[in-house]
């Protein structure tokens, strides 16, 4: 008899916590992803009963089969204390960010904005993306561009008149990077962000007055 389903703990080729359908086309199902999609389904229906759980699981499997994601090693680890720290900082920063943007909106002098490059220390895609998302939610800048090869984010900063503001923006990005990696990163990445930040590339500031 031909086996239709293979589980990852019997088969070392598959990523952990996943199972594989051996059919006409092989499809690998990521079980944590299915659990998460099912959870979202149940939460959207707002009543945790068996019918919702079952239909949610069916929908999640169907979605995963219909739209298969590329196999990547996310390198996602969850550190509860780190996540709490990150959430706390994000909330605080979001409050100050709201206040600052509001102040900038209602001042009448012209804003001198700038686009700055901030080199990061982490190297994995997920950490890069998570840091960019965290940075977008806090004061300092909005992300214009992320360069994956050099792990550099480019931020648009309002009120870039003084070097102190730019320094603060860079430091806040590095602090967020450290917090993000400590919340979700592997131990490699955590060791990497413990090092001092990379030197800022020199640039000639042109004063377009």
């Amino acid at each position, binding site marked *: 008899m031909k086996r239709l389903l293979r589980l990852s703990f019997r088969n070392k080729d598959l990523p952990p916590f996943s199972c594989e359908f051996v059919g006409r086309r092989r499809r690998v199902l990521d079980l944590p992803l299915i659990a998460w999609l099912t959870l979202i389904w149940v*939460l959207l229906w707002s009543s945790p009963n068996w019918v919702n759980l079952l239909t949610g699981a069916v929908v999640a499997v169907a979605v995963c089969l219909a739209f298969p994601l590329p196999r990547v090693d996310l390198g996602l680890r969850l550190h509860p204390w780190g996540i709490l720290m990150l959430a706390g900082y994000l909330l605080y920063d979001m409050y100050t960010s709201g206040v600052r943007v509001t102040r900038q909106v209602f001042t009448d002098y012209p804003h001198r904005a700038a686009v700055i490059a901030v080199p990061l220390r982490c190297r994995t895609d997920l950490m890069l993306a998570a840091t960019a998302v965290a940075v977008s*939610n806090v004061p300092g800048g909005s992300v214009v561009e992320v360069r994956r090869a050099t792990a550099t984010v480019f931020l648009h900063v309002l009120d870039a008149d003084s070097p102190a503001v730019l320094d603060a923006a860079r430091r806040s990005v590095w602090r967020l990077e450290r917090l993000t990696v400590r919340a979700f990163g592997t131990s490699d990445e955590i060791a990497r962000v413990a090092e001092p930040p990379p030197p800022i590339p020199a640039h000639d500031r042109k004063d377009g007055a």
Partner: protein
Amino acid sequence: MNVWFLILDTAGAVLVFTGAAICLLGVIGMLRLPDVLSRSHAATKPQTLGMLLVLAGVALRLRSGMDLATLGLIGFFQLMTGPVAAHLVARTAYRTGQVDHGELLFDELDEQLTEEN
């Protein structure tokens, strides 16, 4: 008991009102700021804060476990998707030349892009 419900309801109403006001400030910012990138600041940050405050206010009014979880889900997706949308708008604006480079004090991205070409 009733007093506590009254306090929770009032606090919820205050939070919803504050959140709505902050969202309004964000919209005013979008109208007042000069270019796309500055406007994306005003469009994302106060909105996210306002949205979270409204959700917190609604949570204080509803006070039931499942609704709280749904509200948490909404907040989570707001935090996850807002930056992505803002980044795409900013990136597209930058790449299609909608950004007035004379207005910028300096631009470290432009230097890198021109180095490549």
